[in-house]
């Protein structure tokens, strides 16, 4: 069995003005081939105007086991949202 080519993650900007969004992954021998494969695999119907590819091994991800430690502290800070504050109806433009 052959060694697999490098795994790349693919991000597509669907139209200018929008951010690149993760769409999937693919294998390629090098970066240019990854861009070309991403074009064929993920933009057959004008889904994009720009492509990023990143070797999957270069992505550093948070650990789901640490999700509580990372995200729990934000849960009880409702005062960070505008709807926490009651403003009388008579007050306009706020």
């Amino acid at each position, binding site marked *: 069995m052959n060694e697999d080519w490098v795994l790349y993650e693919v991000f597509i900007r669907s139209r200018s003005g929008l951010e690149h969004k993760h769409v999937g992954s*693919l294998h390629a*021998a090098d970066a240019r081939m*990854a861009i070309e494969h991403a074009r064929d695999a993920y933009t057959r119907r004008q889904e994009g105007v720009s492509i990023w590819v990143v070797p999957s091994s270069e992505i550093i991800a948070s650990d789901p086991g640490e999700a509580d430690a990372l995200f729990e502290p934000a849960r009880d800070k409702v005062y960070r949202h505008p709807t926490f504050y009651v403003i009388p109806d008579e007050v306009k433009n706020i």
Partner: protein
Amino acid sequence: MYTQALDSPAAGADEASEERERLERFQARIDRDEKIEPKDWMPEAYRQTLIRQIAQHAHSEIVGMLPEGNWITRAPSLRRKAVLIAKVQDEGGHGMYLYSAAETLGVARGELIEQLLSGRAKYSSIFNYPTLTWADIGAIGWLVDGAAIMNQVPLCRCSYGPYARAMVRICKEESFHQRQGYELMLTLARGSEDQHAMAQDALNRWWWPSLMMFGPSDAHSVHTAQSMRWKIKRFTNDELRQKFIDVTVPQAEYLGLTVPDPDLHWNEASQHYRFGEINWSEFQAVLKGEGPCNRERLEARRAAHENGRWVREAAAAYAAKHQGPARAMKAGAGALS
């Protein structure tokens, strides 16, 4: 670890109850309709079930290119040829999305390809039937892709995130496949007497194999119950088959074609079509490799793999010479910031 566990049964019991708790927490997540993502903890059986199902699905897309690719050079017009090429290219794309989804579960792409080429992996029984006439291309789009859509739409809500996302993408594209097939059938059905007969002949040959695509009946389906509990599957094989028949029979009537099932009739009480017995021994034989085209399909895949070897090797050598995953697009460096 193993010998340690033998030495201290107390620790073993602790581990077992911990494992049970983990399983319960996992099932609770599924029951709450939460999605499972690649790095989340999951039972090994869930992982293996998904790898098997997604890989079989991917293989089916890849082998599925062969019966239709067979007609690209003989398409009767430039329009039909362009459509067929686009469709076959989509099938290849679908295979790629699915292999990628399977890889998030920790299996290597090369291993999956190896399983297909060695004949150890299964793929959909339908692709082991031959495409004898041009009308078969219409029947495949209408019936085979129609059945696939029936199967795949509920998979968009599958509990495993990467599989569900791949299915959303696939389902969006699949609708064109079915419509172009029906349009092709409609053209033939409204054409000359010979063309009408050709359409009828294609329906005769593809109807029953299409019904078999939904898999064995619920009573004989080994995986259904567990897969439903894990929300990998949302409907049983028989439910989906019935749904397919109910929507497809009126479409056949509109074409002026006859569904090749003398037992087929509308049942007013159940509001469903009743249909005749499926030839399950044929289904089992095709799955086991005894269908009309099993050998031919695998030989074609192996030849494609072998004939492409020098291209893969050349690309790898070129990449190595230019230092691995080199930044071919220098201007893009730093673009992420």
